[in-house]
């Protein structure tokens, strides 16, 4: 997993609530057996019309917006457990997703792939979306060590929560497998004396 400490970037506003994993990566693209290339099909049915032509109304196709931060509406990532959603978003180039609420499984999958989910208040999200939509050049600064997100242009500084263990993993690029495999003896001892 790639290390994550700080990030300064412009952001793309996806002002839609309840973005589900079927929108992030439709099921018909889940036939691959490796992790690469899913970015080509991220938000596929919003980015392209059925005939394959580009939907220029969709924000990811708007040349005004770019950057490695996605700012999205409430309850982002609901639906299926497919980690392909997190792979697709990172493969497209995002490193951070900001929302006022994340679905559990998506949040876990994101953290396991070095994609930082930042949960902010509803007021903060609305302010960010409004600012970015109007001023696409707005730079947002994320500091994982301090757990802060800053948009200087509008004097917005917000603190975000992250599990301390997960924070250490992201800063150092460790994943859960490293931790668990180092604890196999403990796990075997549990198996030997489990009571149920």
């Amino acid at each position, binding site marked *: 997993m790639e290390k994550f400490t700080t990030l300064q970037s412009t952001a793309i506003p996806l*002002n*839609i*609530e*309840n973005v*589900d994993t*079927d*929108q992030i990566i*439709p*099921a*018909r693209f*889940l*036939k*691959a*057996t*490796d*992790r690469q290339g899913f970015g080509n099909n991220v938000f596929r*049915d919003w980015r392209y019309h*059925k005939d394959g032509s580009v939907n220029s109304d969709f924000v990811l196709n708007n040349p005004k917006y770019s950057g490695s931060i996605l700012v999205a*509406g*409430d*309850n982002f990532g*609901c*639906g*299926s*457990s*497919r*980690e*392909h959603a*997190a792979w697709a978003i990172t493969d497209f180039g995002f490193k951070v997703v900001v929302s006022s*609420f*994340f*679905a*559990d*499984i998506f949040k*876990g*999958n994101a953290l*396991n*792939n070095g994609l930082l989910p930042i949960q902010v208040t509803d007021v903060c999200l609305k302010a960010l979306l409004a600012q970015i939509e109007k001023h696409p050049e707005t730079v947002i600064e994320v500091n994982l060590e301090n757990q802060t997100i800053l948009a200087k242009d509008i004097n917005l500084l917000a603190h975000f929560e992250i*599990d*301390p*263990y*997960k924070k250490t993993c992201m800063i150092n690029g460790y*994943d*859960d*497998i490293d*931790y*668990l*495999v180092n*604890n*196999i003896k*403990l*796990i075997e001892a*549990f*198996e030997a004396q*489990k*009571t*149920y």
Partner: protein
Amino acid sequence: MSKTLFDKVWDSHVVNSIENGPQILYIDKHLIHEVTSPQAFNELEDRKIPILRPNQIVATADHNTPTQNQEKPVEDELSRKQLAQLSENCKKNNITLYELGHKYNGIVHVMAPELGVTQPGLTMVCGDSHTSTHGAFGAIAFGIGTSQVAQVFASQCLLLTKPKSLRVTVNGKLKNGVLPKDVILYIIAKLGTNSGTGYFCEYAGNVFEEMSMEGRMTVCNMSIEMGARGGMIAPDQTTFDYVEGREFAPKGEAFKNKVAYWKTLPTDKDAKFDKEYHFDAQDIEPMITYGTNPGMGIKISEYIPEVSDASFEKSLKYMDFKKGESLINKPINFVFIGSCTNSRIEDFRVAANYIKGKQKANNVTAWLVPGSKQVEAQIIEEGLKTVFEDAGFELRQPGCSACLAMNDDKIPQGEYCVSTSNRNFEGRQGQGSRTILASPLVAAATAIEGKIIDITKQLN
């Protein structure tokens, strides 16, 4: 200290706790399928880590399988490769696989309970969000991502923070024609799609106590649609009777001992939940959805609510419905009875009972897809297949099918499908398709009439 069902199962599976961090939770059973496992096998191979407990893993092929001509080679090249990779991975690692065509093959959340793999008091995971289904037995069961599939492969454990607890109690007598699917669609419509996020949900009350295991599975299956990682129902005699005698169930004295333990699992009387909701069974009616998430549901005789909100309006625009409109008499050309929510024998009995002696409307394409080979065999044995075929329905072979449309079972652009599945997301059943979630009874009635009807009028 008083404990909930969830606490009892969780606490007995904690291997260790990290200070200011998650806990190491032991996983008893790991179910895998072809779509979310290949990258996990690759990960372990790349890191030269062996699979710790292959005998605690059960594999099936379900998501990406055809529902016709299963005896012939799979036509789609990518699907064929994905299925071949599952077979190869299982063979290499000594994992039991019920592949396409095997008499135990089926949707993972249908076949595992049928085989007695699912039992009370266990922890179970699968790279599929509808793993919550198995909570119907009083197990802690939840969906995981592929990185977590790899973690369980490597250590038979996961690092998790204990979720908060939620209880939904429904007491009273259900009205005629109100099925378990209506109960869960009603709960989600009342509470919303993210009300359960961060929680594990217990369903309590006489409504769930009186349900069959099939019905309980339908309810727990959709827990994730209100955001809850899992749902649970206390194990009781109905549970024990279902498990007894199944392939992987404990036998003889061992079974008796297990039952004695399982009886200790229900929530203690004065245990506290972080959140509680109560509903009256009498208020529930056959349900139907009108939008693009499972929380956008109404009683079938109600009107689409008048909500002024951009996401709500976007959703209605996609569905081509209007605020304040009724869905009664909407012409429907596609009906799907299947998926891990409603593809068990009980669901097909309900449908057959309604369909018997009637004819499918000419405008309707109806797919009936059993959840497993065992369900398929039982449909034939009970004579339901003849009922379906006489009425003009097509019984297909088992699999996830049009629930997520990974295979060829796709609903065409712009068409409505009344579906017994679990998600009405945009394009879920095929690009541009429009899904209306309902019970097997409402789906069967729609197929006969060729339009949505107020089923309550026929029932009362």
